[in-house]
């Protein structure tokens, strides 16, 4: 590859100046003349029949313009994968965050006051508060179309796991519980609905895919897609939690009906109730291995709490078809998973898309196996982990270079482990405080980039070159969402590189369905990889036309990603993904045996970004993911009780503060380009999120000799397992 000029450089982000001066406009920062204010009335109860809804008193309040209900929505359903949630419930409420109606008034205060006057008579129904309960025979049914409350099932069988397990020299078992996680993006949901100058029903909001939002709005309003428009401004974080709609459809219904701009802004409590969460999942493993530690067979059961609606539960569960076994090779395996509808807040996408959960369980298993056969944690992993040319458990070839072995060795070495004989000697940190113990742990893993599973995938981009003798300005049109990760800046770098232009001659025209086709969502670590490919292809085409004297020269369209397949019965036919990210992390912790508090002393994180388009931003993604994982592992304790969320504030749901992340993290970055991604990039958005929990739990075991199978590792949970606990 020729010397790169712009790609590979840490350049100033396009949006950072606006963001440091307060000029960046997030959804709540838009105010237009004549704008109305909308207050959504949430059900606030997990399961109930709506007996009646009386808006008379609300409508009588001065300033109130309308109360919109199910009757105002032509096709009253929404949903990204499965349209199984009503825009406004007309009869049945299935979770606290269900929207029942919305009050629209001249002021936010009037809307808020009137919302309290809407009289809704509910008849509460029994609550399914966990997947296990929902799957019990005779449990009450939440969706008539999904008998047994089965939202989705997966099944895979390779070889003969039963026979292999029966014959195995060593068998280890485990059951793991991972909790829900709240995204806690700092910007609560907000948006403005209006009719644009072309008469389109328009919603300006924060999301992860303009076109996914658009399709749901158009379907609900029964309008052609070109009669709808979705625009994103600055977005205050997403992490998967904005893949599903929140305010979008309600705003569109209101603007469409009233023909006036309508704004809504959610409070933090509404945000926590109103959007999905990382799935709470129970995972049961039985592994068989040879006495030398070579893995042979696995039987794995996954029970996922989908919550009241599917959101992306079916897809998150499907990813366990490969990720359940971690980054390891098995000859025989059986994987059975079920996602169950319950009355909890829906499970949805969250950085890692099931991999934090699957990796936690698989890594705890390999750690236990190592203990059982007397191998150190590094050797047992190296003996079993996937290598270049290997296959996923589905039979799908692991295309591209697999850098995992290299990453594990680099991580181990940096963390202070040394090769000794045919194994590794690990650091044995000791605390100097009598009431504290130190421990060392390691975890390794992989994460697909891109959806895979046969989902048609691609990305649209268009590039227009202006100028006469030289290119004065390159316009890049993309609908890709910049959720804060810096996607627009990276795409600008890719355009500049392809065109041989300095960055300041590239102009990004972004996140508007009116100016660009579908870029696909910002999820699955795919935007740089695929959105970048689309921009590069568009730029190259425009450049060719420029060289053919087109003025302005324009190129682009839909770039189609290499095809993948769904899970096929014939293993050799499977080609489930085309790109992967790998990583290894080591953690040293100190635990206070009296209080149970864990302090993470040091982390070594070895990752392979393929190629870093903007090294500073790659680091930013890794750091951000790692700290979200620290929160999930240690402090973020999302508590629900009978379908009711008890941690609906940032004072009870504790995300890490700057005082909680004092851990020095050493990054070891090996760039091993993968040709599928533009300029060799691999996705880096998620991989660092999946490793801290198992690394810390392993370190905790090293410190105190106790395996913890349930997250988060709150002080209480840790202390309660110490023999001298007196509670």
């Amino acid at each position, binding site marked *: 590859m020729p010397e790169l000029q712009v790609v590979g450089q840490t350049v100033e*982000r396009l949006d950072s100046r606006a963001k*440091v001066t*307060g000029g960046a406009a997030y959804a709540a920062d838009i105010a237009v003349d004549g704008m109305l204010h909308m207050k959504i009335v949430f059900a606030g109860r997990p399961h109930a029949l709506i007996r009646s809804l009386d808006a008379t008193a609300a409508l009588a309040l001065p300033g109130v313009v309308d109360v919109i209900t199910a009757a105002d929505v032509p096709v009253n359903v929404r949903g990204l994968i499965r349209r199984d949630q009503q825009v406004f419930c007309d009869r049945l409420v299935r979770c606290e965050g269900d929207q029942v109606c919305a009050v629209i008034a001249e002021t936010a205060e009037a809307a808020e006051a009137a919302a309290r006057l809407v009289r809704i008579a509910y008849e509460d129904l029994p609550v399914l508060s966990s997947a296990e309960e929902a799957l019990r025979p005779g449990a009450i049914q939440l969706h008539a179309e999904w008998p047994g409350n089965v939202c989705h099932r997966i099944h895979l069988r390779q070889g003969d796991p039963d026979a292999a397990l029966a014959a195995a020299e060593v068998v280890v078992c485990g059951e793991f519980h991972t909790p829900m996680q709240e995204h806690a993006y*700092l910007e609560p949901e907000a948006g403005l609905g209006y009719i644009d100058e072309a008469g389109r029903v328009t919603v300006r909001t924060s999301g992860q895919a303009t076109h996914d939002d658009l399709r749901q709005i158009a379907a609900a309003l029964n309008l052609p897609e070109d009669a709808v428009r979705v625009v994103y401004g600055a*977005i*205050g974080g997403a992490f998967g939690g904005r893949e599903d709609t929140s305010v979008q459809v309600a705003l569109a219904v209101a603007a469409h009906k009233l023909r006036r701009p309508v704004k809504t802004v959610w409070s*933090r409590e509404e945000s926590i109730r109103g959007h999905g969460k990382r799935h709470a999942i129970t995972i049961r493993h039985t592994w068989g291995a040879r006495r030398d530690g070579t893995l042979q067979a696995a039987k794995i059961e996954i029970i996922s709490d989908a919550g009241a609606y599917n959101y992306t539960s079916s897809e998150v569960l499907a990813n366990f078809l490969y990720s359940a076994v971690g980054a390891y090779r098995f000859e025989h395996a059986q994987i059975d998973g079920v996602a169950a509808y319950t009355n909890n807040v829906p499970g949805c996408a969250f950085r890692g898309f099931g991999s934090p959960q699957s990796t936690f369980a698989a890594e705890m298993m390999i750690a236990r196996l190592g203990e059982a056969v007397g191998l150190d944690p590094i050797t047992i992993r190296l003996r079993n982990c996937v290598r270049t040319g290997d296959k996923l458990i589905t039979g799908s070839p692991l295309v591209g270079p697999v850098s995992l072995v290299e990453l594990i060795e680099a991580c181990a070495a940096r963390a202070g482990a040394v090769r000794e004989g045919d194994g590794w000697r690990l650091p044995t940190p000791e605390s100097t405080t009598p009431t504290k113990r130190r421990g060392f742990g390691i975890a390794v893993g992989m994460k697909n980039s891109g959806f895979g599973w046969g989902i048609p995938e691609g990305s649209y981009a268009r590039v227009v070159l202006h100028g006469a003798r030289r290119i004065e300005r390159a316009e890049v049109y993309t609908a890709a969402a910049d959720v*804060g990760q810096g996607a627009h800046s990276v795409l600008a770098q890719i355009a500049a590189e392809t065109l041989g232009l300095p960055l300041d001659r590239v102009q990004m025209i972004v996140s508007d369905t009116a100016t660009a086709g579908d870029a696909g969502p910002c999820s699955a670590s795919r935007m740089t990889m695929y959105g970048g490919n689309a921009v590069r292809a568009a730029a190259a085409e425009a450049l060719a036309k420029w060289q053919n004297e087109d003025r302005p020269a324009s190129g682009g369209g839909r770039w189609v990603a290499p095809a993948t397949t769904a899970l096929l019965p014939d293993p050799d036919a499977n080609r489930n993904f085309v790109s992967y990210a790998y990583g290894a992390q080591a953690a040293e912790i100190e635990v206070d045996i009296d209080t149970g508090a864990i302090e993470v002393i040091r982390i070594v994180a070895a990752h392979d970004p393929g190629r870093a388009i903007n090294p500073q931003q790659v680091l930013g993604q890794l750091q951000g993911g790692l700290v979200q994982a620290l929160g999930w592992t240690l402090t973020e304790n999302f508590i629900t009780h009978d379908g009711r969320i008890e941690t609906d*504030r940032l004072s009870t749901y504790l995300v890490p503060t700057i005082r909680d992340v004092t851990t020095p993290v050493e990054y070891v970055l090996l760039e091993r380009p993968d040709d599928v991604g533009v300029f060799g990039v691999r996705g880096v958005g998620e991989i660092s999120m999946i490793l801290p929990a198992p690394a810390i739990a392993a370190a905790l075991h090293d410190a105190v000799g106790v395996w913890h199978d349930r997250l988060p590792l709150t002080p209480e949970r840790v202390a309660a397992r110490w023999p001298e606990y007196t509670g």
Partner: protein
Amino acid sequence: MSQVTVTLTVNGQTQTITTDAHKTLLYLLRDDLGLYGTKDGCSEGECGACTVLMDGRPVNACLVLAGQAQGRTIITIEGLAGDGELHPLQRAFIRSGAVQCGFCTPGLVLSAVALLERQPDPTEAQIRQALTGNLCRCTGYTQIIAAIQAAAREVDHA
């Protein structure tokens, strides 16, 4: 609805505003003055996105009533850059990669400004202490600390 009339100085300009008595300084700034750089991430003092400087000290604008701002001097993020010239901390945030989604940024920058005014050469522990009340969900904080250290060096050498 009861109203209050307050006179306060915001970003160097003294203004008199009549607004709802129960309104917080956060919404006085946003709705009455159109200063949208001050963000609402929780409205209960937990996230720091609404941080402004009141008489030079960082406070959560969401916990100050409009009437309590009477006679006070407020600096918001919009008032930090003079004549298009960025404050050294703003420059450092950009350069150090301390900005991702940016929703926390105005509050963080202002907390850091107050810190550097009191402590031109803060230790890492002092930085952490000063920024405890500002959550950031995107960056993991490392590059934010780096930005403040870089700005401190720059101010120091200026």
